[in-house]
């Protein structure tokens, strides 16, 4: 019964698990890792965009904070990578809480977008200019790979794209599960209620400010975790990671993929990592085509690609059933 209900996600998970065996070259496997990383990051941003109904243009800063935190702790203090990731979550969470606490008091909507943009930009500047800590433009290099050292088992280093893929896939699955758990909890319902009608939600006892800050903190902590996993994969962390171009790409992944859904941001991440790669062969036209694709998607599928596919499927299966019932002598399904 449980199997049947969750059949689709389980099938997708099974496919995801065998993907590195189908795509055996290093380049494809690298893309798979990046897709998982950005999918999880997009999901964390979707907490703010899809479930809170707000816009944060500084979200990428938490990705960077997580990457730098973990990288610094393992490089400078020799901490095990896993602890670095934990620290990244805590750090991202605390900074997210502070920023949320200060920004979400009164600002909503466009003003919030501007505030978060400002904050994100400041953090970007810090990463560039606090030379002693972050090494400025050159960034941090030689970041160690995560090592699994369980006594009694052989020591394993997550260095290859193959092994790292399963690591980030696990994180992606965890993120999906966490968000779905939040959604079916009182907390998640409150946040959705706030998105639907903040005034009404307040009138039934939901403390808007508290829940906004909590959701924002969760999104930030998640983004930081994803950033840490990315840092220990590419093993170089530079301020570019916090740049506006990546932030906009992330935004597009969420919105064009389908905000407020679990599959949307994942689909968006896959599409907007793969398509630019496929367009490489078109050289200068690449960015123009990419821009064109965004526009087409947003105009024809304003709710996102995933919701559009779902409604297409619904209509197709409905007409399919109608057709089948006619063929089957008029018996309705």
């Amino acid at each position, binding site marked *: 019964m449980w199997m049947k209900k969750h059949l689709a996600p389980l099938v997708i998970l099974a496919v995801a698990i065998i993907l590195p065996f189908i795509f055996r070259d290093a380049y494809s496997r690298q893309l798979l890792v990046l897709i998982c990383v950005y999918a999880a990051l997009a999901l964390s941003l979707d907490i703010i965009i899809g479930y809170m109904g707000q816009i944060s243009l500084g979200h990428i800063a938490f990705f960077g904070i997580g990457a730098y935190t973990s990288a610094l702790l393992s490089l400078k203090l020799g901490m095990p990578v896993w602890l670095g990731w934990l620290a990244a979550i805590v750090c991202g969470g605390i900074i997210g809480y502070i920023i949320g606490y200060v920004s979400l008091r009164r600002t909503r909507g466009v003003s919030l977008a501007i505030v978060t943009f400002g904050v994100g930009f400041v953090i970007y500047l810090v990463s560039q200019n606090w030379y002693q800590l972050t090494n400025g433009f050159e960034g941090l290099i030689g970041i160690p790979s995560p090592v699994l050292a369980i006594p009694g088992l052989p020591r394993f280093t997550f260095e290859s794209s193959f092994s790292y893929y399963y690591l980030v896939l696990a994180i992606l699955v965890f993120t999906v*599960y*966490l968000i779905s*758990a*939040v959604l*079916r*909890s*009182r*907390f*998640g*319902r*409150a946040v*959705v*209620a706030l998105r*639907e*009608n903040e*005034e*009404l*939600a*307040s*009138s*039934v*006892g*939901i*403390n*808007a400010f508290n829940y906004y800050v909590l959701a924002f903190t969760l999104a930030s902590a998640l983004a930081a975790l994803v950033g840490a996993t990315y840092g220990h994969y590419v093993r170089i962390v530079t301020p570019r990671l916090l740049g506006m171009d990546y932030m906009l790409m992330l935004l597009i992944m969420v919105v064009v993929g389908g905000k407020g859904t679990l599959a949307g941001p994942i689909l968006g991440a896959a599409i907007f990592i793969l398509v630019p790669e496929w367009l490489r062969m078109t050289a200068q036209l690449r960015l123009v085509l990419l821009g064109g694709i965004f526009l087409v998607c947003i105009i024809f599928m304003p709710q996102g690609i995933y919701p559009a596919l779902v409604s297409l499927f619904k209509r197709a299966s409905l007409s399919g059933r109608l057709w089948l019932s006619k063929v089957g002598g008029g018996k309705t399904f």
Partner: protein
Amino acid sequence: MTILEIEGLTKDFGGLRALDKVDLAVQPGEIFGLIGTNGSGKTTMLNIVTGFLKSTEGHISYKGELITGFGPHQVAQRGVARTFQLTSLFPALTVEENVISARHLNSHSGVLRAFFLTKAYHKEELRSRQKAMDILKFVRLQEKSGMIAQNLPAAEQRILEVAIALAVKPELLLLDEPVSGMNLQETARVMELIRLIQQTGTTIVIIEHNMKVITELCSIIAVLDHGVKIAEGTPEEIINNKEVISVYLGKRRVGNVES
């Protein structure tokens, strides 16, 4: 002990005095009516009581506790619920989800429980849905529980609003023009509902323009005009009050006919 006490309530919007030293006292268990011309300050007063606006001067006490300056969620936590002048729902959610969301204060599905899908979580979820359906049955919307809220016909949207307010389990319910835009049948249905709610022990304050509803349901009515309370009394007293007639009701009045 009065359940709601408003003292010297004054509200200025810049140069405009929307409320001028209004005093009001609502007794537990009664249905209290608030009438007046548009712009007389009725909704402003409601907004201040429920924490959506801050008063310029004056105090509000609920069950003896000073709630002046409380935010909306704090007022709700104490057992005061309201509806809105313009229909206010969670539009994209289903009717059932609207009520479940509104049960926030009475729900216990924590994230940790939801994460591990514990037995306690499932029990709580079942209980939540059950209670939500109970409320929907009370307002007779249970058959439309799966419908998206914004697709409901207008009158039923107003009724869903009441259901949402009831989910707070209020001791004091403030209704802002609950029958506006309704025909006779729909109005009668809502009036019946209001009577049923009173029977459960809830105190009700109604802002309305429909005089039939006000005079038939309320035991006490207060009249506002340009932010000032010009009269307070039983329905009899109010419809015969000269000042109320000249300001609001109009000279031509025959029995209980709506003016």
